[in-house]
């Protein structure tokens, strides 16, 4: 995993690099828009961490530039601009997520992992969360080296939740995924599938919890990080 960090504060840059190194990801740290553009031009990155207020320009311009070139590398904005409208501006510019300073290393790494899981470049990779590993290609779930049997509907629900772990996934999005299988969905099909999946995960002590956020969707939580 290779990450580009664009941050102008030397001390914060140093701390972020230290945090990222602890999870054994590689990180290149630069302090200006120009240096970031030069780095992106010569090396492929899995994730960009971009501060907005940089000495030679705005991080938003850097993000707009790489999106204009058609690059799909996930971008996480790290900024002190915390207002909602500023967050919307950042996301509109092409960022995938927005982390307002101050934040702790758990928060930072969780956001990075979430973005990396969702990244198209990593679709074929193994998704590891809690005590389980899930192979999206083969749709096989394993826990402590043992394969866990799941129904096709449970597998597709789990795949959606794992890719969006730590976020509330609207029920409609899961319905759309299940519809891809041509299933006729009954009114409580999603609830039933989630309920079964929840029991299954509890049974294997997966270290995961599926919360029903009534009226909003479902939330998959990694209990091992809590």
């Amino acid at each position, binding site marked *: 995993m290779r990450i580009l960090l664009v941050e102008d504060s030397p001390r914060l840059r140093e701390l972020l690099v*230290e945090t990222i190194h602890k999870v054994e990801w590689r990180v290149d740290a630069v302090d200006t828009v120009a240096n970031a553009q030069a780095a992106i031009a010569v090396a492929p990155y899995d994730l960009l961490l971009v501060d907005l207020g940089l000495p030679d320009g705005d991080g938003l311009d850097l993000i707009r530039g790489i999106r204009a070139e058609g690059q799909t590398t996930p971008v996480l904005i790290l900024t002190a601009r915390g207002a909602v*409208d500023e967050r919307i501006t950042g996301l509109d510019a092409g960022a995938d997520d927005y982390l307002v300073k101050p934040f702790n290393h758990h928060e930072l790494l969780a956001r990075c992992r979430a973005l990396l899981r969702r990244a198209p470049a990593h679709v074929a990779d193994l998704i590891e969360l809690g005590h389980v590993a899930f192979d999206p290609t083969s749709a096989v779930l394993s826990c402590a080296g043992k394969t866990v049997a799941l129904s096709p509907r449970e597998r597709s629900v789990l795949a959606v939740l794992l890719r969006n772990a730590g976020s509330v996934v609207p029920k409609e999005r899961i319905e759309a995924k299940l519809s891809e299988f041509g299933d006729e969905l009954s009114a409580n099909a999603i609830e039933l599938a989630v309920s079964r999946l929840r029991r299954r995960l509890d049974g294997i002590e997966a270290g995961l919890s599926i919360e029903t956020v009534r009226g*909003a969707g479902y939330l998959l939580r990694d209990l091992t990080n809590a």
Partner: protein
Amino acid sequence: MPDQAARRPGLVATIAWRIVFFAIIAMAAQVVIVFADYYFDNSELGSLMIERESTLLARGVSAQDGRWTFRLPEGIEGYDPGSATRLARIRAVDGGIIFSNCGTQCLLHLLPEEVDPPDRWTRLLGQGKPIAVAGGRSVWIDGKQIIIEIAILDRNEAVMWRALGHEFADHLAIPMLLQLVLVLGGSLVSTWLALRPVKAAARQAGSIDPLDPEHRIDVSEMPREVAELGAAVNRSLARIGRLMRDQRLFTTAVAHEIRTPLAMMQLELGQIDSPRARRMERDVESLARLVGQITALGRLEAIERKGFQPVDLAGLGRSVVASVGPWVYDHAHSIAFCESAAMSIQGDGGLLEDALTNLITNAVTHTPAGTKIEVCAGPGPRIAVIDKAGLYRPGDCDKSPMARAGDSLGVGLEIVKRIAAIHGGTFAISVDPAIGTMAVLNFPSSPTQGASRHP
């Protein structure tokens, strides 16, 4: 202030009262001058008396079948036959006597019958008051001329006052009233017309949106004096607009300068494996939250209403619940969203999101683990955050709900209150010991429904 202004008399009413007041003074002065002028001029006063009395007596003369008849009109006294104080003789031009209450007295004070009298004549019979006067005039009745001659010898005060009263009424009171009505009406209309631009300017100033720094009073059609006032107000508005922009820049700068060191502190503490470091992390989090709220409060002062858009409260509530859901569960609470015929309002989606997030944060911070929090949109333009903690802590029921602010300063709830006020709405907290605390944001209905920046 608007109520006090409404109670004050209007300029038109003030001017009307002043015109009436000064007109009454002017009229009174005029009456005194005219009265004095007549009263001390016996010759003029005598003529008026003869004129008035002859006019009254003429009313009693009529012609029937070619013959003159006379009957003393009602209200006329003192002309009885043989009267020694008031003599009257009415005769036709051919010499026929129509009425006479005097014999030899007439010969003494009136013109001889054989004399063809002038149209009007008056002769004072003595000096000073009471006035004794003789005189006569010719009067035309039914196309024929008659001559009325009168001599007022004694006890004539009533006659004098009647003549003066008639003169005052006919030649003073009526013209003065007419003049008053015209002057008053003209002045009021002129004042009202002159005040129209001022009223229009006041209306414009009253409808100025304090959250729109571009709003100005249109002075293009105002008279110069009012336009100068409007221009002064516009200069103040421009200054407020600049202050709002400066405030926004300042809060952004402050946020940046404080948040970055806080991020360093949190990351640094994260590298230290010690319970004391964890406690400091929590302190830094509290400090970060306070900084966030203070800068948010500063940002509210710089909000511009022109950026308001339709916001679907149901979409907003659902979006915020989804956004803060992970944080709520991480703090061992649960959250749900419900909707009941919620409406859209005209507002700033970001601010409303901040308000709702603040209320949820507040509910999580001040309730025990396991508490269910519910965000309910509707019915109507309303959204509420309810925590179902019940009466979770003894003594809490004695406190004002506002005391349960998300921080010691109550900044979080102050932000929510201001956001509600910016949207023309209200914010209220109520505690039901059996259920928990309910924080409700009520907004005015918006005519716009439908589209929203929130899904």
